[in-house]
């Protein structure tokens, strides 16, 4: 028990970087527990008396994963919602009932300040722009940021975490001390300063758009989460017999990492990549709301809320409801999906 508590504390610290209470989601994914579940799944654990004979036909790890995942109704529903949201984002130009930037002529202005109705489901703002259209287009940016940050941090984090966990020694020391340093500064403040300092400046000869800049900055924060997780799993996998067997049969380190250890780390990586999508969308919208993220005229849910902050308490308050709901629904779906995936990969976790 003491071990899992320490892991929980570590994970809580990692989650504190992001400045959110996500520790409950991350904390329950402990490397130790995961490695234990592998033993059972792969038939490496002690078989019961006579168990071998009556064992059902062998199933691959993936078949087991999908079977367990589909039992988790909520996670399946969350996955469906998420696919729907991404489809809405991809096809926003085709679906949106109005133009994103209509000509601000008398006809549009006549439609200004209309509450939600059949004609304008989410109402219109003070310039007569249709809010449903804007929420759909903003979703493109927010979901894109979430996905890109998750992909970049997963690639980078997996590479660094694998090397650190497998080789240990000074590589590991540097990685751990480096990520420790990020845990001692308030993340949101640092992100805001970084955005302000880098905005409008060329990076490696390229002038980045505010969207690309925020993807870059957030990836730089979140790859560490993945790296720590991968490192943790690698540390416990390193001691397993199948790795030793591979080493004894003369496999190179590269082969052991890519062919033997990484496939067994897919679970925690997939779960944490999913959770990073949610964290990235939350952080992006927060930064954009404060004015340090995606800049207008590009619309994101966060900067829509920044623009309509003053509508709170007026009869335009509906402007504040929908972008916020969009963020909440998206992140909630991501978190439920991640939770279901964790259960499917690691049926022994108790939460």
């Amino acid at each position: 028990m003491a071990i899992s508590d320490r892991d929980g504390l570590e994970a809580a610290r990692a989650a504190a970087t992001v400045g959110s209470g996500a520790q409950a989601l991350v904390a329950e994914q402990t490397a130790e527990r995961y490695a234990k579940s592998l033993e059972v799944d792969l038939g490496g654990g002690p078989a019961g008396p006579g168990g071998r004979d009556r064992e059902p036909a062998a199933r691959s790890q993936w078949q087991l994963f999908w079977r367990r995942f589909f039992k988790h109704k909520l996670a399946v529903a969350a996955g469906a919602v998420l696919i729907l949201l991404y489809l809405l984002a991809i096809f926003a130009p085709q679906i949106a009932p109005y133009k994103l930037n209509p000509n601000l002529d008398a006809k549009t202005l006549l439609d200004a300040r209309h509450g939600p109705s059949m004609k304008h489901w989410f109402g219109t703002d003070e310039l007569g722009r249709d809010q449903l259209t804007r929420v759909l287009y903003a979703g493109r940016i927010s979901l894109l940021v979430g996905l890109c940050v998750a992909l970049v941090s997963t690639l980078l984090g997996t590479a660094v975490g694998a090397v650190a966990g497998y080789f240990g020694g000074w590589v590991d020391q540097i990685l751990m001390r480096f990520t420790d340093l990020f845990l001692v500064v308030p993340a949101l403040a640092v992100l805001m300063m970084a955005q302000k300092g880098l905005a409008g400046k060329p990076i490696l000869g390229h002038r980045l758009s505010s969207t690309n800049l925020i993807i870059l900055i957030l990836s730089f924060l979140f790859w560490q989460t993945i790296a720590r997780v991968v490192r943790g799993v690698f540390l416990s996998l390193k001691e397993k017999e199948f790795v030793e067997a591979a080493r004894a049969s003369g496999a190179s380190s590269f082969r052991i990492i890519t062919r033997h250890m990484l496939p067994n780390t897919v679970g925690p990586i997939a779960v944490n990549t999913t959770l990073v999508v949610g964290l990235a969308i939350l952080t992006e919208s927060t930064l954009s709301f404060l004015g340090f993220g995606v800049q207008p005229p590009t619309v994101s849910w966060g900067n829509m809320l920044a623009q309509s902050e003053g509508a709170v308490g007026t009869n335009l308050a509906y402007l504040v409801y929908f972008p916020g709901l969009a963020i909440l629904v998206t992140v909630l779906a991501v978190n439920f999906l991640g939770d279901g995936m964790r259960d499917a990969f690691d049926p022994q976790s108790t939460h």
Partner: protein
Amino acid sequence: MLTYVVRRIALSIPVIVVASMLVFGFTQATTDPLARLRQSRDAARLIPAERHRLGLDRPLVVQYTSWAKDFVKGDWGESFISRRDVKTEIFDKLGKTIQLIIWGVLFSALVAIAVGVYSAARQYSALDYTFTGLSFVGLSMPVFWFALMSIQFLVFVPKNLFHLNQPILYSVGLHSATDHSLLDYIRHLVLPVLTLSVQLVAGWSRYERSSMLDVMSSDYIRTARAKGVRRSRVLLKHGLRNALIPLTTVMAVDIGGLFGGLIITETIFGWPGMGRLFFDALLSGDTNILLPWLMVTAVFIIGFNLLADVLYGVLDPRIRVS
């Protein structure tokens, strides 16, 4: 025990030193103390002079050591905007933020422990599922949107509904200009405390639930039940007391993060604390505030991490042995 504590404290000193180097370099790279002069007509003449006066033309290492010396001595420079001493400014705001933290942590801890214990005692009951669902909502909630919604539905909706001259809860500031009563203070405090509690309650209650379930399945609980101790007594006397140990350490880590983590809450509710100070300084280019601000918050985070480690050792003797 004492050597354990002393060793932990000694270990965190190099962390603070390295963090200060990192923070110094980061601030140098991302801020421009000369930004105010760039628009000026005399920029070509003023900038090199000012650069020399501030010592920005010296090597980075020299700049760092001279800054670090001043920082340790307590000479933190003065604000560009208010011309006030940065140290007084920061400690003044720190007091305001600490008020928010104390009330927020007390409230969140009480709610989270109650919810966690109930959920563990009645695992898989309807209310347990409800709490689990709510904690997911809390963890997925954009805090700034929750703040806006709380202003809309707890300030304006009741005010318009009952045709009040003054809202029941206030959404701006620490207290009214003329009224310094306790009631007025509470009316200002409710919304920011609620906002900062959303994620704390969601996270802590989940943590308390799982650590309570862990404890309740251990042998000494079964022994206590077997010798005839009542269930409620086992739950609170044996279960809760042990389940609180891991939660305490998680709480300590989270509280450390709050000193620099209330930027959203303080900005939206006009609470004159650390978060608001940072936001204003960053927007107005008051770069002298930023570096000491980062250092102070980093020291708090490191300090509370240390506290978490020490608490763990004090509360759970098994850790010290191993």
